[in-house]
Every structure is written in C-alpha cells, then in structure tokens.
C-alpha cells in the first residue's frame, strides 16, 4: 500500500525547461510588428501628411547617424542614463531598507502612512522647478527627480513583500529557535527579492521620466534637453529622434532586468 501511494506520487516529475538557441518565434513576431509600424509611418508621412508634423523613420535614422558620428548621441544618452541610473539606485538604497523597517514596525507605518501616501500621490513632475532651484541645473537635480519618482515604488513594494511573508514560515523558524540573522538571511530577504526585482522593472521607466522631466525644465545636455531644444526650433525630427532613443533605452533596460530576474528568482 505504501509503495503504490509513493509510486503514483512520484510520477510528478519536474519538466525539463526547453532551451532554444537562435531567434525565437516570439522575437521574430515582435520584430515584424515593429517593422510594420515603421513602414506604415514612413508610408503615411510620404502620402497622407507633411513630415513636418511627425517626421518620418528615414529622417530619424539619418539624424541618429549624424548624432552618432558627431558624438552628440553619446553625450546626451550617457547623461540621461547616468541620471536615471543614479536616481534608481539611490531609490533602491533608501526604499528597500525603509520598506523593511516600516513593515516590521506597523505602528510607525500607520503613523507615517498619510504623509507617505500624500507624497506618493503628489505629481512629482511639479517639483522639477523647485529641484532646479535647490540642486542646480547639473546632474544632481535630475538624479533627485528620478529618485522621487522611484523611491515610493521600492518602499511600498518591499513593505508589501515583507507583509506577505507566510506567518507559518516565521513560526516554524521560531519553533526551531532560529536567530534574527538566520531569519533575515534565509526567510526575509529571499521572500522580498521578487518584489525588489519587480520594483526595478517598474522603476526603470519612471527613473527615465524623472531624469527627462528634470532636463526639460533646466539643463544643457541629455536626451530630455535635446527633445526640448529641438521642439523649440520646430525640429520634429529632432524630437522624435530623442524619443526613439529613450524608447530603446527603456526596452533595453527591461530586457536586462528580465535577464537578471531569471537568474535571481529561479524557484518561481
């Protein structure tokens, strides 16, 4: 009887993950979709309307090439990436520990909750002029913009992550007389990692928004500045070129985080 029961159970084998080398059908479909959109845009701007209003892919490609050759592309892109990345990391550095602390101190969390949610709901874009005033038109004001956009994401996600830890896990560890260090390292951190990764995923786009908004208000370089100054000269190709680079950056960052997630969270 024992044997029958165990044998039937053990049929539930772990499915071997299929790995395909080369380009997956999904990636091909995604690429085809992008090309189709670009083709449609190109066609429409040649037949339906004046490219002055929305430029056209071929013009953007030429501009990209010019900017790359002159080195301007690198200057603007690296500026914006630095601002967004620094803001994102700073937000993680502040938001993660704060989230853990607040989740473990519910009374403090309840006390600060209205203020935190108020700040979270505040359109932080409106803070940009103030930040330029406080932190100057250099890197710092944009880093702080990106930071304020993202820090709440880390804070709220990590709090939720800690709160959703299975109380049975904690009781089990307590019953086996686990120390605080063991609890943090073996239960708390692994439980929170997926929430941190998710925060990074959401945070990348928001950090870019923060950096760009900062650049729109006051800067002398960066992709946001390039978009703004092109717009001022009625250069729609310039605007779209800046936007294209920003889009590509967001897509690349998303891919990178997806890659890290698969490495870090293998157990899901």
């Amino acid at each position, binding site marked *: 009887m024992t044997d029958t*029961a165990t044998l039937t*159970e053990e049929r539930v084998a772990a499915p071997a993950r299929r790995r395909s080398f080369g380009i997956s059908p999904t990636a091909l479909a995604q690429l085809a979709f992008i090309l189709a959109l670009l083709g449609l845009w190109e066609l429409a701007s040649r037949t339906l309307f004046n490219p002055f209003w929305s430029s056209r892919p071929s013009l953007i490609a030429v501009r990209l090439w010019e900017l790359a050759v002159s080195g301007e592309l690198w200057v603007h892109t690296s500026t914006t990436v630095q601002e967004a990345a620094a803001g994102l990391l700073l937000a993680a550095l502040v938001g993660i520990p704060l989230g853990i602390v607040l989740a473990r101190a519910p009374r403090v969390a309840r006390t600060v909750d209205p203020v935190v949610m108020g700040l979270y709901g505040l359109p932080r874009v409106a803070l940009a002029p103030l930040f330029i005033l406080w932190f100057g038109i250099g890197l710092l004001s944009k880093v702080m913009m990106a930071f304020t956009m993202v820090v709440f994401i880390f804070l709220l996600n990590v709090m939720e992550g800690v709160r959703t830890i299975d109380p049975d896990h904690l*009781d089990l560890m307590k019953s086996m007389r686990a120390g605080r260090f063991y609890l943090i390292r073996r239960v708390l951190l692994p439980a929170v990692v997926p929430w941190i990764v998710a925060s990074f995923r959401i945070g990348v786009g928001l950090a870019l928004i923060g950096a760009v908004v900062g650049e729109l208000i006051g800067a002398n370089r960066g992709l946001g500045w390039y978009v703004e100054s092109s717009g001022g000269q009625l250069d729609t190709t310039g605007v779209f070129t800046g936007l294209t680079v920003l889009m590509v950056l967001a897509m690349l960052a998303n891919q990178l985080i997806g890659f890290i997630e698969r490495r870090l969270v*293998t157990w899901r």
Partner: protein
Amino acid sequence: MALTATLAAVPPLEATPAPARVRAELRDLKISFPRPDLPPLEVISGISMSVGEGEFVAVVGPSGSGKSTILRALCGLLKPSGGRVMVDGRDVTAPPPGVGFMFQKDALLPWRTVSGNIAVGAELGGTPAAERPERIAALIRLLRLDGFEDAWPRQLSGGMRQRVSLGRLLAYQPSLMLMDEPFGALDYQTKIAMGLELLRVWEAERRSIIFVTHDIEEAVALADRVVVFSARPARIVADYKVTLPRPRHMRSMRSDPAFTRLTEAIWSDLALPD
C-alpha cells in the same frame, strides 16, 4: 493476541500510570484570546496531561477545540492565560530546545529545493556543517524522495511536500515532536502511507510525539494513547491507552475488534451523530 487486546477507558490523568520520564506536561492550562468589544474567547479551560519519554500521544477533538493551541503553547509560540506549560520540567517561556513542530501546511520555503528545505532543520538543529550532506541524503532515502533532491517545492505533489516537511522536522533531531494535523490535507491513501512512514521512523528511534488530528482512526492506528478533547472551551473528555500490538499493520488492524471498539468509544465521546 491482537484479537484479545483490551482497551481501558480511563478517566483523565489520575488513573494513567505515570510514564518513566515526563517530557511534556500541562497543568490546569487555560488559554483565552482577547477579542475587541467582546469578552475574551476561552479556548482551553483547564487541561492537565503529560507525555512520557518515547510516548506517542494523539489528541483528537472537534475542529476549533484548541488542539493546535496546546501545541503552540508547548513550543513557546503562545503564552497561556493560566496554569503551567512545562517541557523537561521547565516552564516554557521561549521555544524550548529539542522540540520540533510540524504544521498542517507544509510551510516549505519556496526558494529552497527539497534538500535545501530539509537542510533548514539540520542547520537549526546544530548538525555540524560537515555532517549535513550525509544526514540530508539519509533522510531523502528514508522518506523516498530520491531523485527529487533538486526539485523546487512548487514541482511537488502534496504528499511529497509533506514528506519534505517531515524530513525537515527529523533533520532538526527533536526529541519531542509536535505534529499539528500533519497529514490532514492529504488524500486518504497518501495519509495512510505517511502514517506508516511516521511509525517506521518512530519505531526506529523512539521520540516523544504529540499528534493532533480530527481523524479518530488515524489517532488509534498510530498512537499509544488517545486523549479526547471536548468542543470549545476544551476539556479532556477521555484518555485511552491503545494496547494494539506494534508494529501496527493497517489492514489487519482495521478488522481488529479492539480497534473498532476504541474508535467507537471515541466516536461516542465526541458525541458524534450515529
């Protein structure tokens, strides 16, 4: 021999001969939970019982009768409102050493593999790092988890997860095992198989076990003693010695008149409908 096995229904405590060495003891235990805007909910109203060295005691009772609560009190997760909770002669104020708890839910860490989860018990039970791999491998063989060492909990069936949970408990090397309906969520067949595995392990190295269940037959089939709790607030209704011979054989035991008489006696103690 098995057919003539007698069962003695004994009133709580007094008539139970004191076992060689008392491992766990409850003296007039009272537990109630505070409720907002209501009088406190009395869950346990004065329970006294003790569990001896190497003894396998099952606790049965209706659901919500506070069976699990006494286990939580015994391993220091819950403070009693009155009376005393003692393990190895000392009052329990924090989780005592050598006491292992197995929950109804398997409570496996989803980010650890099968052997990683069993390792938790070895790590916290103080097995030296050098001896852990061997010890874990032995438990994996004992619990027939071979080939699944590196599987994630999400890939396992309910029965296998519960065996990993048992493996973690055994890796902790507790001398007193508190088991809270550990097989309650399993299907009938798996439940019986798990019960037999537990008996096999227990017969090899006699540890004290307090096994909480709502399944009367499971209690009688496994334990040396069955303590019957009333509905909330819990009191002890009866305390039976199970004299069925060991090792126990599920199939022949089920037709043993002693088995049937005992389950029927408990059935009527619990005032279950006919």
